[in-house]
């Protein structure tokens, strides 16, 4: 049976969603995307630089293989996020959006109130909304109820590389979720991605962990393997935790006894 990720009307073989920011070069980004096996990448919507010609990011993304997910990063109000989502839809010709409404500059934690408001408006306008949210099961439930196609709780602050700070919440979010759960932000290295998947997440979204690694292409491959391994382990069903040892070898028949 194919273990594919289904979000709204699309299916993905890869459960790893990757960003397009902060790479040393567009060429390295392209190679990292290839190594990651990703089928969906996030992009930001920003003013065109009128004063000079710049290379287009899209020259380095094979949009026949990789789906573009515009984000509303750096939007601090529902109104700005909605406006940015509408522009992203027109630029990208898909109605998907990674919805960010940020509530605090230092932590980049989401503003849940604005996020819910923007989700409701954009869902009504026909968007497939993937909100970046706190690792809060109640907020995730409200977002799903508002029509979000998935929920994307943070593992840790964006770009922090701290790993999954509240694994129990991620597990609860997944247990209660009626939509796919994508852990978005906070991954620092491969084991963090594996942890997210072992907790039951349907996917992981990351940017800095790959783009900021000393060798982004090698890290992209590590993340691909980690996400696959974590998913497999989750499906395999791990053993229960015990405080004391349980011998793996027979205790009887030991020589000299």
């Amino acid at each position, binding site marked *: 049976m194919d273990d594919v990720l289904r979000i709204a009307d699309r299916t993905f073989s890869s459960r790893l969603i990757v*960003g*397009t*920011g*902060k*790479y040393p070069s567009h060429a390295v*980004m392209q190679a990292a995307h290839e190594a990651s096996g990703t089928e969906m990448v*996030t*992009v*930001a*919507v*920003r*003013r*065109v630089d*009128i004063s000079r*010609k710049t290379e*287009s*990011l*899209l020259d380095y993304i094979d949009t026949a293989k990789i789906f*573009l997910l*515009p*984000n509303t*990063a750096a939007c601090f109000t529902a109104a700005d996020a909605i*406006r940015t989502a*509408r*522009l*992203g*839809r*027109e*630029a*990208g010709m898909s109605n998907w959006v990674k919805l960010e409404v940020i509530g605090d500059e230092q932590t980049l934690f989401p503003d849940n109130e604005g996020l819910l408001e923007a989700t409701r408006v954009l869902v009504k306008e026909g968007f497939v909304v993937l909100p970046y949210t706190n690792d809060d099961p109640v907020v995730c439930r409200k977002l799903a109820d508002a029509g979000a196609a998935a929920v994307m709780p943070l593992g840790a602050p*964006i*770009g922090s590389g701290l790993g999954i700070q509240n694994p129990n919440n991620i597990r609860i979010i997944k247990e209660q979720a009626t939509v796919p759960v994508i852990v978005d*932000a906070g991954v620092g290295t491969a084991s963090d991605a594996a942890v997210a998947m072992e907790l039951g997440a349907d996917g992981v*979204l*990351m*940017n*800095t962990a790959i783009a900021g690694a000393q060798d982004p292409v090698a890290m992209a491959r590590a993340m691909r393997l980690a996400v696959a391994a974590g998913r497999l382990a989750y499906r395999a069903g791990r053993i229960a935790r015990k405080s004391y040892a349980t011998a793996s070898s027979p205790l009887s028949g030991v020589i000299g006894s």
Partner: protein
Amino acid sequence: MRAPGGLWYDRILTAMTIKLNGDPRELQGPLSVSALLEQLEIDARRVAVELNTAVVKKAAYQSSVIRDGDEVEIVNFVGGG
């Protein structure tokens, strides 16, 4: 001066100032969104345009007219997470 060709904008062009991506810009106008993108040498397929905070659909680039005092935003995709 007269605008070359076209129907709706076959009229006298005058100097106008619009706000383009947040900065004032002097142009001869009125002019269509298509004409503005052409002047700026921007590939229309890879951008999205807002005219006075409303998104302009690509199909409406020819018919949407930018006038003195209008606010125009032209955006594209850049790297992000």
